[in-house]
C-alpha cells in the first residue's frame, strides 16, 4: 500500500539521500547561508558545486527527479536553517510554469537548478488577487510578439530575478484570454520599486511601460496558462508549508533548549509543568502540520491539488502562528529582541502565513473546492 506513483522504496531511498545531502551542506555552509540576506555567491554554491537546487528537477535537465517530495525536504531544511533563498520562486514554482517540451525552457530551468539563473513568477496582480485575474497587466499583440503595459504588486524576490514569468491578459481571437510570458528582468520599460520584508527578503512593485517581448516569450495561453499558474501556486503553497514545518521545528528545539538553560526561582524553567505542557502542545501542532504537508505533497500531481494545498495552508498557518507565539512567550523578553534567532524565525513564520493569502482565505478556498466535489445525494446512501 503506497500513496505515490514512485515505489515506496525508491522514494524513501532518494529522499533519504536528499535529506543527507541537505543537512551536510547546510551544516558545513551554515555561516554563509543561514539567517542571512540573500547572497548570489551562496546561491550559486548551493546550485553548482553542491548540486542541491536541482534534486527535485527531472533527470533530463540534470536533476534527480525527486519532484514535490524532494522540494518539501529541501524547503523544510531551508526553514530549519532559516536559509533566505529564492528556491520557492526560482525552482518550485518555475518548474511548474515552464514547458518541459521547449528546449529554451528546459535550458532556463536547468540554469535555475544550477543557481545560474533566478526565475521569479509574478502571477497574481498583487495582494487579494487570488483568482489571478491578470487584469492589471495587459499584453497587446505586436507583430509576432507582445507589448506589456500595467503593473504587478508585491512580487517577492523580484529584485533578484533574471527572468520573470508573468500572467497577463491578452486580446485573443476568441476574446480576452490569459497569457503566460517570460520577461527578462532587464527589459526596457520595466521599472521596479523595492520593499524590505519582515523576513529579510525583498518584494517589489513592478511597472510595465510598453515592455516588448518576442514570440518566444510565450509559455502558454488560455486555459493552459491558467492551469500552469495554478499548479505553480499550489506547489509553492505546499512548498512554503514544508518550510514552515522546518521553521517550527527549529523554534521548538531552540525553545526547549532555552528552557533547560534559563534558571528562575532557583531552577530551570523547563521544570515547570505549565511550560512543559505548552512545549508539548507546540510539538503536537508541529506533528499535525508535518502530516498535512506530507498529505498535500502527495496530492500535488492529482486532481485534488488545490483542495489539498489550501487544507495544508489552513492548518499550517494556524500551527505556525501558535507555535511561534509560544516560542517567544517561553523565551520571555529576550524573545522579542531583534538579535535573538527566535525573533527571526518568528518573522519568517508570519511572512509564510501571509505569503499566499493567509489562513482565512485558504479555509474559504477549501470550502469552495469541497462544494465543487459534492455529489448530489443518492437516495438510500445515508
Amino acid at each position, binding site marked *: 500500500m503506497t500513496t505515490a506513483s514512485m515505489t515506496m522504496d525508491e522514494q524513501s531511498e532518494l529522499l533519504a539521500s536528499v535529506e543527507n545531502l541537505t543537512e551536510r551542506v547546510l551544516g558545513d555552509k551554515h555561516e554563509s547561508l543561514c539567517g542571512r540576506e540573500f547572497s548570489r555567491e551562496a546561491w550559486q554554491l548551493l546550485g553548482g558545486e553542491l548540486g542541491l537546487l536541482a534534486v527535485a528537477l527531472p533527470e533530463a535537465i540534470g536533476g534527480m527527479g525527486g519532484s514535490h517530495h524532494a522540494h518539501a525536504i529541501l524547503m523544510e531544511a531551508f526553514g530549519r536553517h532559516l536559509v533566505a533563498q529564492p528556491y520557492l520562486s526560482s525552482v518550485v514554482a518555475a518548474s511548474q510554469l515552464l514547458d518541459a517540451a521547449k528546449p529554451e525552457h528546459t535550458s532556463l530551468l536547468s540554469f535555475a537548478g544550477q543557481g545560474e539563473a533566478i526565475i521569479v513568477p509574478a502571477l497574481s496582480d498583487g495582494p487579494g488577487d487570488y483568482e489571478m485575474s491578470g487584469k492589471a497587466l495587459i499584453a497587446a499583440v505586436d507583430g509576432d510578439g507582445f507589448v506589456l503595459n500595467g503593473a504587478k504588486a508585491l512580487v517577492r524576490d523580484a529584485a533578484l530575478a533574471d527572468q520573470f514569468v508573468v500572467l497577463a491578459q491578452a486580446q485573443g481571437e476568441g476574446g480576452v484570454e490569459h497569457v503566460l510570458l517570460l520577461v527578462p528582468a532587464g527589459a526596457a520599460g520595466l521599472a521596479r520599486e523595492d520593499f524590505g520584508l519582515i523576513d529579510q527578503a525583498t518584494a517589489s512593485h513592478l511597472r510595465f511601460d510598453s515592455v516588448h517581448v518576442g514570440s518566444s516569450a510565450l509559455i502558454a495561453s488560455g486555459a493552459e496558462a491558467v492551469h500552469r499558474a495554478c499548479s505553480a501556486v499550489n506547489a509553492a503553497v505546499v512548498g512554503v508549508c514544508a518550510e514552515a514545518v522546518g521553521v517550527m521545528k527549529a523554534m521548538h528545539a531552540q525553545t526547549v533548549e532555552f528552557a533547560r538553560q534559563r534558571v528562575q526561582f532557583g531552577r530551570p524553567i523547563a521544570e515547570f509543568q505549565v511550560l512543559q505542557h505548552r*512545549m508539548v502542545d507546540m510539538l503536537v501542532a508541529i506533528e499535525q502540520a508535518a502530516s498535512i504537508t506530507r*498529505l498535500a505533497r502527495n496530492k500535488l500531481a492529482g486532481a*485534488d491539488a488545490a483542495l489539498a494545498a489550501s487544507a495544508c495552508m489552513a492548518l499550517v498557518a494556524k500551527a505556525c502562528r501558535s507555535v511561534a507565539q509560544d516560542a517567544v512567550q517561553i523565551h520571555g523578553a529576550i524573545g522579542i529582541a531583534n538579535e535573538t534567532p527566535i525573533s527571526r524565525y518568528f518573522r519568517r513564520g508570519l511572512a509564510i502565513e501571509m505569503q499566499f493569502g493567509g489562513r482565512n482565505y485558504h479555509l474559504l478556498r477549501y470550502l469552495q473546492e469541497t462544494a465543487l466535489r459534492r455529489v448530489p445525494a443518492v437516495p438510500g446512501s445515508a
Partner: protein
Amino acid sequence: MLELDLVLEPEEAAFQARVRRFLAEKFTPELRREAELQTGVFAHGELAAKWHRILYEAGWIAPGWPEEYGGAGFSATQQYIFDQECTRAGTPDLPVAGIRLCGPVLIEFGTPDQKDRFLPRILSGEHVWCQGYSEPQAGSDLAALECRAVRDGDDYVVTGQKLWTTHAQFADWIFVLVRTSREGPRQAGISFLLVPMDAPGITVRPIISMSGEHEVNEVFFDAVRVPVENLVGEENQGWKVAKFLLVNERGSGSAAAYLRNALGMLDKIVEPQGPFATNAFDPAFARRRAEIEIEIAALEQSEHSLLEAMRQGGRGADDTLASIHKLHVSSLMQAITELEVDAIGEYAQIYQGEVLFGGREPSPHVPRRALTPVAHYLNMRAISIFGGSSEIQRNILTRTALGL
C-alpha cells in the same frame, strides 16, 4: 473531502473487496439503525453481542492477534484496511476490555494455561471482560492504587475498591491491578490479577453518567479469594503489564476513520432537507467543520506514515505517537460533539436519557436527529479523561518527546 490516495497492492485490494462484501452482507440495515443510536464510547448489550458473534463466526473478531491464538492473523496493512472498512460502514464500537486489552496482555505475559483457558473464551464472547485500574485515590496517579492482594496459601485475598469500571454489570471477568507490596517504589509493588466477577465478596454498584447512561460502575472487593494461578506475569511486576496495556488502549490504527464516521453523523444531523439544515449553510459552522475535517486528514496521514514505518521494519507501538494521536482524537471528537449540540439548538435542552436508555418512546414533537447529540456530547467528555487524561499524555510527552 480530503483523503489519502491509497494505492493498494492487488492482494490488498482483493482483501478490501472481501471485507466490503462481508459488511454488505452481514451489517444489515437493522444493525445499522441500532448502531446509529449508540451514544456511549462503546456499544453494549444485545447489539454488541450480535456483532461480536458475527465477527467471531467469520474468524475476524481479533484482527490484531496472531493466528496461533485464534486471531485473524492480519498483517498490519490488512488490519488497517479492516478497521477502516468497518468504521466507514459504521459498525458498532465493540468493547475493548477483552479483545483489545486483556487478550494481547495474555499473549505477551500469560502462562500457557492462562492462554488456553482464557483466549478462546475471549474470542467466542463467552467471557465478557472489564478493566479494574482506577480507584478513588488512584486516577491519573495510577501507581497510588491501594486495592490489596495478600497471599494466603494458594490464593490471593483481594480487598479494596475499583472505580469507573466500564461494563462491570455485563462482565464475567475483571482484570485488576492490585497492591502486593509496599516496599520500594510504588510501581514495584503492583500485580496483575484475573478475577471472576461471580466470586464471593464482589459487589458492583452502578454509576449513572450525566447523559443518563449506565456505562461505568464501582466494584468492591471484600476478601475475595483468587487462586495464584490467576496472576499474570510475576508478582510485583504488574506495572510493566499495566503500561503495555495502556499503550494498546491509546493506540488505534484507524482513529481517523472513527472520527470521519462521527463527522458523517454530524452531517446527517444537518442534512439539507432536515430540520437543522440552516447550520449547514452557516459560514461559521461550515468553517469549524472544515477545520475539523482537515485535522482528521492530517491524523489519517500520520496513522498511515506509522503503518509505512511498521511495514519497513519499524516498531509498531510508538509511545510518543500513541500519546500524540490520543490528544488529537480526544480534541477532535469533542469538537465534533460540540457541533452536534450546536446544530440542534434549543432541542439540546431536552433530557433524552429515558428514551435512549430507559426504553421510553421518543416524542413525535422532537426531530429524530435531535435524540443523540447531547448524550454523545456528554459521554465524550470522558474521552480526554480515560486511558490517561490529556494532561497525563502531556506529561508522558514531556518525558518521551521533549526529553525533560
